[in-house]
């Protein structure tokens, strides 16, 4: 599976398909994610985004096509928090470190560090998941993945349960982490603005069966993007005929469609 080339590691999908029983949910997915880049995956509900992420994480057997994952360490955050109800938040965050054999004191220190950056205090860390709010649970789940310092981070709607302030803070954390070391991120989101704010590329999926309809590149650094730029690009994305068709929006685009290219988006 590991793909060691002269170039930096990458995640590469070629012609990936998947069926649950007789029902085909994914077909002919080609995707390329290089090291140090953030790619967003958007698409209507039920088009197979989670399935695709699980295939990449190796949680589903590959039925069709090829996946080459050149990254040494991947970590995954699921659409549901999936925390162990019998472990404190701190022990939940430290779970992957424990699996790697990190001694107790060290893994707790690392987990506490990561949690602080996500605004989780010691009280919250001592509590069981059922005692935490939904947003706190998803921060614990995100911390559990990030504390592993992965080269490939897979996020399934990581930020959807958070308020705008927390979202902005976690975006900042993610970009800072990503500036420190070349971490590739594949993030599923329902929020086009989030995709446009964080990602170097946005892959748009269409349903029945799930496939890549189109994808856009944004070459500037995400941390440098202004709000105005993000709004303009989101509007541009929403005006795109392919995107509208993928999400089942009314076909006719507004009279004067905003050219995405004018605000820095390149259709690939």
């Amino acid at each position, binding site marked *: 599976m590991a793909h060691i080339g002269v170039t930096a590691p990458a995640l590469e999908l070629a012609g990936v398909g998947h069926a649950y029983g007789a029902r085909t949910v994914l077909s002919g997915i080609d995707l390329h994610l290089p090291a140090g880049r953030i790619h967003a995956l958007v698409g209507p509900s039920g088009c197979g985004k989670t399935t695709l992420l699980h295939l990449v994480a190796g*949680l589903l057997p590959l039925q069709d096509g090829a996946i080459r994952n050149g990254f040494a360490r991947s970590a995954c955050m*699921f659409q549901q928090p999936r925390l162990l109800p019998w472990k404190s938040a701190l022990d939940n965050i430290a779970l992957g470190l424990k699996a*790697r054999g990190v001694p107790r004191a060290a893994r707790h220190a690392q987990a506490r560090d990561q949690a602080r950056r996500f605004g989780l205090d010691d009280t919250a860390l001592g509590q*069981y998941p059922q005692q935490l709010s939904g947003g706190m649970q998803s921060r614990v789940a995100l911390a559990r993945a990030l504390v592993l310092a992965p080269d490939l981070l897979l996020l399934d709607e990581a930020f959807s349960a958070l308020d705008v302030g927390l979202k902005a803070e976690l975006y900042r954390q993610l970009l800072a982490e990503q500036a420190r070391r070349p971490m590739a991120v594949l993030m599923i989101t329902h929020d086009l603005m989030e995709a446009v704010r964080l990602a170097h590329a946005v892959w748009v999926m269409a349903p029945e069966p799930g496939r890549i309809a189109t994808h856009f590149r944004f070459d500037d650094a995400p941390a440098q993007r202004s709000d105005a730029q993000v709004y303009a690009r989101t509007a541009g994305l929403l005006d795109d005929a392919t995107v509208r068709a993928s999400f089942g929006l009314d076909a006719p685009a507004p009279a004067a469609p905003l050219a995405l290219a004018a605000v820095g988006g390149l259709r690939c």
Partner: protein
Amino acid sequence: MIGVFRQWLAGLPAYLWGGWGAIASLLLLLAGWEFASQWLDPLALPDPRTVLATLHGLLTEGEAWAELAITGRRALTGFALSLGVGSALGMLAGLSMTASMMARPWVTVLVGTPPIGWLVLAMLWFGASDGTPVFTVFVACFPPIFIGAMQGVRTLDGQLREMAQAFALPPLQRLFDLYLPHVLSYLFPAWITALGVSWKVVVMAELLATADGVGAALAVTRSQLDTAGTLAWIVAVVGALLAVEYLLLEPVKREVERWRTLA
């Protein structure tokens, strides 16, 4: 583990205090017994005071402790064997769909075979040794424990299992951090059921197969038509069972399942 023990000690007073309701309901039972004994021939049902006096006599003479210790050793040995083997095999069977489907009919056969049948077999195999009651207890305790463990594993949330796979939990961590905490909530009730079974079955086995233990003492009281003595032994056995269950298993269960009650 030491932490669990310390918390068990710390929680004991509050736990005992909370037991007043149970004690009151036991006293009510005693009152019913007293009432019934007034209408019946003392040879059929002696009143509780006579029985408790007989028990007191047995305990102070020291005879009862020795017999109870022998019976307790046999019951707990069989129970512990069943607890270990049944829990382990049940969990293994739960991991595989095929194994659980295959195991079901076997367990039904085990449940359906009367303990007295096992006892006769055990007498043929082990004679008058400790092996006979211990084996009979083991076989009688096995089905509920096995089924509890198997169901515990089968009902573990598939999403959590996927999560454990994604985070590459090694097998031992998977056992202690993922499976056991969930399975324990199925195992504890099963263990408590099996513990009750073990005391009943051990007395029956001793009655028919051994020369010592509470069961053998019961055989003697029966031959002497000593109803008070019989009831005294029964009270002693039930008391020992209650002590093991409520002073040991129940508090440990509370401690281990604390995450559930806090939620």
